């Protein structure tokens, strides 16, 4: 038992090195193929794009750590984004608009969290149902058309455009969110309890973890971060669109599971690397002038490859091969 710990650490390090080499190779390929990729402006764009994917992924990480799946956050983010856009259009200043939008997201996060955590509803069905209701509500503000009144004059665009010391605001927000997320999930007792809930909810309950609260908290964090991310997207596009948040679903799952393929469990750092990988690939294709569906194709492929890699245990494979060879040798000898 005593030597179990260093072994797993070594395994993680190996897969992390493999991942970083792969990432480096991808970056090098893009940089060689395309001059536009290596400009400083493009690196900032890449980071901004990464901030969007990374923050949604961070929220989803909590849900996956708690052992569930959320199929509502992208729908909920549409509703809270439209709420914010509508308030901006009515002449409310940005900060209260953002807060109210996040409040709507929070309410729906609490709803799915309570349904799944407290009332033990099946997670997939309950969250899809909650999400469908949220999506229907998102149409109420404008019958589904774009909202862009007051966007320029109100200053909401600064959420995406403003910089501090040359670093775009979304990137700073991402850094803050990841710092807090890391402390919460990996450096505090709360984080341990999230993992305990996901591993074995019954055991966690008997160990004194209030499982319902942790599950609800996970869904709330996920809905909140997704809502906020969609607001950044809206600020970047300059208009509120009902379907804008739907595109968050796939990258969010991709970031989390690229992270799982590296660290063998959902972690904050893994999700960060996943977001980095996906942002690099998507940005590379955008700079090369490929249409959006190439990026979807690549994200899908990255996800498939990371599934394959995460399930292949190289050391185990080597050990088995050695065993088989030894057995064959023994058979020949006798």
């Amino acid at each position, binding site marked *: 038992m005593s030597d179990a710990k260093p072994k797993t650490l070594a395994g993680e390090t190996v897969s992390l090195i493999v991942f970083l080499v792969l990432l480096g190779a991808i970056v090098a390929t893009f940089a060689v193929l395309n001059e536009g990729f290596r400009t400083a402006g493009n690196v900032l764009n890449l980071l901004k794009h990464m901030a969007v994917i990374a923050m949604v992924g961070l929220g989803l990480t909590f849900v*996956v750590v708690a*052992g*569930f*799946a959320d*199929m509502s956050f992208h729908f909920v983010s549409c509703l809270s984004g439209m709420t914010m856009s509508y308030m901006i259009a009515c002449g409310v200043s940005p900060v209260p608009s953002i807060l109210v939008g996040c409040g709507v997201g929070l309410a729906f996060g609490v709803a799915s969290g309570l*349904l799944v955590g407290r*009332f*033990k*509803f*099946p*997670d*997939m*069905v*309950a969250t*899809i*149902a*909650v*999400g*469908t*209701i*949220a*999506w*229907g*509500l*998102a*149409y*109420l503000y404008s*019958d*589904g058309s774009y909202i862009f009144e007051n966007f320029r004059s109100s200053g909401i665009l600064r959420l995406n455009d403003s910089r501090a010391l040359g670093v775009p605001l979304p990137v700073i927000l991402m850094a803050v969110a990841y710092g807090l997320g890391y402390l919460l999930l990996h450096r505090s007792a709360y984080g341990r309890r999230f993992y305990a809930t996901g591993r074995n909810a019954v055991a966690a309950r008997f160990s004194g973890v209030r499982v319902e609260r942790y599950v609800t908290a996970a869904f709330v964090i996920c809905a909140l971060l997704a809502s906020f991310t969609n607001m950044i997207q809206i600020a970047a596009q300059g208009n509120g669109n009902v*379907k804008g948040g*739907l595109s968050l*679903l*796939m990258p969010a*799952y*991709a970031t989390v*599971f690229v992270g*799982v393929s590296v660290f063998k*469990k959902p972690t904050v750092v893994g999700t960060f690397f996943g977001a980095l990988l996906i942002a690099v690939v998507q940005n590379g294709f955008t700079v090369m002038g490929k*249409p*959006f*569906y*190439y990026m*979807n*194709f690549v*994200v*899908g*492929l990255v*996800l*498939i490859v990371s*599934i*394959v890699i*995460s*399930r*292949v245990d190289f050391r185990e494979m080597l050990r088995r091969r050695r065993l088989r060879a030894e057995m064959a040798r023994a058979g020949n000898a006798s």
Partner: protein
Amino acid sequence: MSRLDSHLGRLFRAQYVLIWVLLAMVLVFSLAAPGFRGAGNLLKTVRASGLIAVLVLGLTWIVASGEIDVSFPAVAGFASVVTVMCVKQGVPWAVALLVAVAGGTIFGLLSGFLIVTFRCPSLIATIAVGSVARAVACMIAGGGKPVHLGGVPRVIRFLGSGSVGAELLLISIVVAIYVVFRYMQDCTTTGQHLYALGENRQAALEAGIREKKIVLSFFTLSALLASAGGVLWVTLFHQGKPRMEGTLFIDGLTAVFLGALIVKAGKPNVIGTLIGAIFLSVLGNGLTHLGVKSYVGDMIKGALMLFGIVVIVLSRYRLTRKPGARRPRPAAAALAP
């Protein structure tokens, strides 16, 4: 007399509530909207439900066996685009249809392979495969916009014409598929294995059920039926749509989960899905005739799904009286690594 009572009581049990709601809904819509009760419109409504019904038939069994498939709209979109592009290139429509269904089935094989061989959570595998399928459909269509059939072949024009003969033909095809699947579900061992897997995966494995083979074939079947739905879409609307997400996704899953309320309480089943699809189609059509906006329909669907879960969970409570004695959540089991 008491016997009659018990028979009547059986008709009003939880698993038949939705059928009564459906009948009440038809009645209310017929009284409120004159446009709804015309024979032509009723026929159209039933036929429209056939599209969803075929699309999610495979998904029904996947959910019943404790997995999930979210790639069905993407696969249907892929099949519709392939059909349209083939017909545009001058390929005979029958061949185009076969090519589209075969192409779509490959995606099902791929996700089944990922799930069975690499023990990947089915949600993740189908999200990945679905995004690839959607991207490939966009590449074939040359963009995200729907592609239209130029010259519509005679057979497709007849099927999409809305004449009584065409409607009856389409309905009878759907009914034939459902009869076959109903037989397989309730009268063969495959059907039993499917519910055994959903009930207790470990016990089913110990009992010697060949889980991998069954799961792989279900995902292939689901993609095959989703592609068939995509081809059906082309015959009805004369266009191929690479990006079928949003409404189709919600409708499909709602049909399956509402269907889980009927006949076998709490378990998705073939007849339930058919009734669920008809239910959604009647709801959509009736609301349109009443002049209600379509997003209200979306909200009602979400509320119905929640209502369905509440009914199932409450009826389980009453059956077992112990909150801890319920069966494990299928969706959570599907995600567990």
